[in-house]
């Protein structure tokens, strides 16, 4: 197993990832949303270290796309363990973008803010939705600065101005809460979702019903999304993700072989015994 996975990683072998229709559609959705001045995107990072493998790449591609579009992003979470990712992911994306475009800057407080961990799940979200002023409702960011004092985020106003909501999570029930409560009369945000592979089959029923507008399917989805991004922003570099994805494919093959063996060998034995006895 280690070998199957290690080889691509070590030699940096990377194959084009499998085509993920859902990821392509999601790119168009994210590209399609238009943001007037004062309107923002809200990104929920609800994953801890447990699902870092799948959720972090997803968070990266989503935030990367929004920052490339210069959309002001409000980051927050329903899950305390995502504390670190709320600060790290956008920082790293910003640094990468600045390397990619010398002279341009992506900065905290201008391009994104981090409202931190918000307890209360459903109660919090339904209050957020009915709040007259989102910036005021969110109070302070993690550094203790009132969010209303960041010029680009002061003018959000009601939740109607949150045009896009992204939910990246591997937890059961968290995504459901957003689907159920992030809406009010005459308002439903464009909702995109990065899910760990476990919940892919679940997410599809929400895609079908239009309650969910875009889906990243585990790491494969993130890999294909980064391919799509690269098509539109050729300078962007995503080799690491592709290597990971290739290693993952190798691991899949191993598993399939193991299952096959596990079923064939007993069968053969029975067949032999059948002949001798």
């Amino acid at each position: 197993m280690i070998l199957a996975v290690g080889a691509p990683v070590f030699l940096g072998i990377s194959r084009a990832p499998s085509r993920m229709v859902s990821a392509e559609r999601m790119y168009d959705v994210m590209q399609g949303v238009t943001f007037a001045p004062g309107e923002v995107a809200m990104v929920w990072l609800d994953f801890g270290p447990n699902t870092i493998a799948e959720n972090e790449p997803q968070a990266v591609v989503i935030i990367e796309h929004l920052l490339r579009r210069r959309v002001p992003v409000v980051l927050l979470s329903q899950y305390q363990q995502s504390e670190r990712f709320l600060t790290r992911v956008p920082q790293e994306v910003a640094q990468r973008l600045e390397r990619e475009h010398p002279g341009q800057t992506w900065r905290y407080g201008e391009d994104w803010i981090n409202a931190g961990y918000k307890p209360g799940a459903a109660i919090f979200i339904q209050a957020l939705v009915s709040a007259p002023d989102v910036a005021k409702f969110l109070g302070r960011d993690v550094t203790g600065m009132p969010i209303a004092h960041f010029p680009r985020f002061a003018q959000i106003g009601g939740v109607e101005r949150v045009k896009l909501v992204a939910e990246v999570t591997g937890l059961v029930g968290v995504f459901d809460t957003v689907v159920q409560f992030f809406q009010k009369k005459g308002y439903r945000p464009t909702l995109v979702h990065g899910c760990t592979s476990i919940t892919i089959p679940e997410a599809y029923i929400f895609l079908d019903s239009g309650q969910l507008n875009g889906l990243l399917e585990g790491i494969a989805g993130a890999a294909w999304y980064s391919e799509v991004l690269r098509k539109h922003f050729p300078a962007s570099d995503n080799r690491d993700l592709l290597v990971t994805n290739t290693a993952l494919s190798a691991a899949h093959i191993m598993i399939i072989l193991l299952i096959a063996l596990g079923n064939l060998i007993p069968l053969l034995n029975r067949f032999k015994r059948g002949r001798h006895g």
Partner: protein
Amino acid sequence: MEERNQGLSGGGVRRDTRALALRVITFLGGIYFFLYFITPESIIEGTKIKSAHEAISNGFIAVSSMAIGLGVINILMAHGSKFIFLKRGWQYSAALLLGLLIMIGSTLAHWMMTRHSASQIRDVQIIGDFAARIVEDAKLGAGNERSFSPTGVPELSKRVSALESYSLRIIEKIKAEESRVIKIAQGDLATTQLIRDSEQELLGLRESVSTLSANQWNTLDATNESALAQVSQRAAKVASSYAILKRKENGTKFSSRLYDFLYDGLFNHLGASMFALLGVYIAAAAYRAFRIQTFESGLMMAAALVVMLGQISFGKVIYEDMPSIRQWLLEVPNSAAFRAIRLGAGVAGLMLAIRMWLSIESAKSGGDKK
């Protein structure tokens, strides 16, 4: 004998009243959100509820977030005693307590640090806000200003001079700090450049502040207004670049380093590894456990195979349309079947929610021990 019976029955009565109290409180816990939901928008809009809803919800969250101490107390009780009395496995309890305390400590320290610099940044922002507010209030006219003071809002000239002296004080403070930071960051071009820029902005601000005293401030005329507007614009610039500088500086402080180390060095790796074990289990089970014995499991494995091949980069090698077959399988049969499951589960959830809210549990199934 007599007394004991009294006592027993008394206890029984108390238990009943408590059970009743529990039912009532549980009901009250739900009644607000229930009514909020079933009342039509149009009626709610009329009432004050809509404006208070935000605060009320916060109140609910406040109740449950009062539980934050429980986890820590439980750990301290369980592992603290183990550690103190050196019971078996005390060294593990020690590790646990260590993790707990370091985490609380460093996260608190990190918070305090950022809070402090946030308030410093705020001090700078106030220049701009205040300048803008002076204009706003003057336009609203004496008596109905937005600003508030028990002794009444002072007249224009007093406020402007207050603004002036305050701004000059802050500007000096920032100057001092920047000269300090520039020493720390020698070599780091980005930071030095930042400081150079903000020095320019500071000069700009000071200049526009000093023009204030030149004007007449008995009324708010066009020149006055533009002067104040300029101050607030430039102050905002200064504040934002000062904020950037502060964040850069904080990043290099020990408490941030430790904080990052605890998360990136320990917490994330430990958590990731714990669950990575599952990857090993599944690999092991693939050979041992996943036997296709029944028609059911055969059917399931077939579907699983399609999905697995469809989502990996080698899938296309085996069959060109693997990804699209996977897509179809997820979109049609899977979605239909899972939606049915979900609807069923949803209905079950609804009934259970109603039972939970009205505390309907059969005593036989231990409901009374809730």
